[in-house]
């Protein structure tokens, strides 16, 4: 490998590592606990049904009974034996998907789009990296109950507010919160989304930044990806 190329990889690794803020292991455990709670509720219903019909049901790890902590250990597992588990399911994730479906049609949008979707949480924070100096049309959709307070700040730190507002959620065809965001210089944008009691854990959201001047990002445009409510989840 060329020394220069090797140095570029080292630089990529070093600089990126220095900027990544992991959501944290406690946050991962909290997500699992929340999902397990949902699974337990669903499992209780299955158990009642099983008793009523006199049949035994067993949750079988890896075949849809996802997120059951403490699967029975098997002999000689290897890291390549497990298939990728299914995506999390539930009405809140369906609403997040529905919100994502309201974003701009990428096949018909000439500029790159930075976007994501997720489930509303009381402390959602997203660091959007590599945002060029530009004027962006920002839209935030919320599907479900409640409202979400949204604030967009400049940079990875600091308290320079570039835009803020309240998104009102609705079960169908919600009106998006629309803001014009002027990013003064290349760098980060941070988005904070705080749901109210009705929205948290129930509503789904999606947001997008579109260049209003037709610029494109140097890398790959971000299509919606499921963001399991976290603080922060992006970088």
């Amino acid at each position, binding site marked *: 490998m*060329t020394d220069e190329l090797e140095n570029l990889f080292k630089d990529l690794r070093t600089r990126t590592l220095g900027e990544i803020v992991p959501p944290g292991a406690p946050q991962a455990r909290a997500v699992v606990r929340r999902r397990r709670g949902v699974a337990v509720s669903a499992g209780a219903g299955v158990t009642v049904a099983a008793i009523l019909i006199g049949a035994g049901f067993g949750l079988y790890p890896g075949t849809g009974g996802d997120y059951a902590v403490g699967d029975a250990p098997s002999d000689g597992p290897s890291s390549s034996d497990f298939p990728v588990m299914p995506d999390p399911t539930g009405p809140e994730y369906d609403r997040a998907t529905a919100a994502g479906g309201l974003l701009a049609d990428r096949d018909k949008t000439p500029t790159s789009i930075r976007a994501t979707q997720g489930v509303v949480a009381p402390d959602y924070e997203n660091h959007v990296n590599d945002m060029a100096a530009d004027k962006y049309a920002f839209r935030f959709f919320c599907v479900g109950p409640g409202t979400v307070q949204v604030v967009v700040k400049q940079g990875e730190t600091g308290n320079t507010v570039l835009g803020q507002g309240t998104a009102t959620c609705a079960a169908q065809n919600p009106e998006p919160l629309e803001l014009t965001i002027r990013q003064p210089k290349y760098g980060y944008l941070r988005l904070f989304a705080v749901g109210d009691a009705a929205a948290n854990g129930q509503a789904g959201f999606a947001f997008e930044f579109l260049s209003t001047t037709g610029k494109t990002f140097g890398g790959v445009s971000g299509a919606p990806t499921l963001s399991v409510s976290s603080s922060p989840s992006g970088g």
Partner: protein
Amino acid sequence: MPNETASFDEIYAAHYGDLTVQLYAYFGDRQEAQDVVQEAFCRAYARWRTMSRFDDPVAWVRRVAWNLAVSGWRRKRTVRTFLRRQRPIEPQVDGPQPERVALVAALATLPDNHRRAMVLRYLADLTVAEIAEREGVPVGTVKSWLSRARQALAARLDLAETTAPEETP
């Protein structure tokens, strides 16, 4: 169990960043990289009693994260093609363009298997033999991918190109 929690926390702390860098280099989207690595760790924790018995639980997390990202990547492939087609006639982004952005953009032009080999070799620090095993191809094939990838990156980034001894086909 306390030991399980400690073990999970240690592995998370030691590998979250590196896995995110690898996914970012491969997919070009750090946002998505962070999300999928976090999701992969959630899935690992959900079955940590089993996972912690693996010889290399990190390999499992990497594989899940990679597959999650690939599934998302497939959904946006049409968009990427569209953007590439449009890019030459569109205004370019102003402001600083870090070298790493240029590297990630150059990586994005490589065939998937070449890009994957480069990331696993130079960011995940896997050996050629380990990459070959992971990809299910002969060692010589991986050497060929790495060699061609280096040439392509050197040309795109205007670098002098030399061959790493361990990767000579």
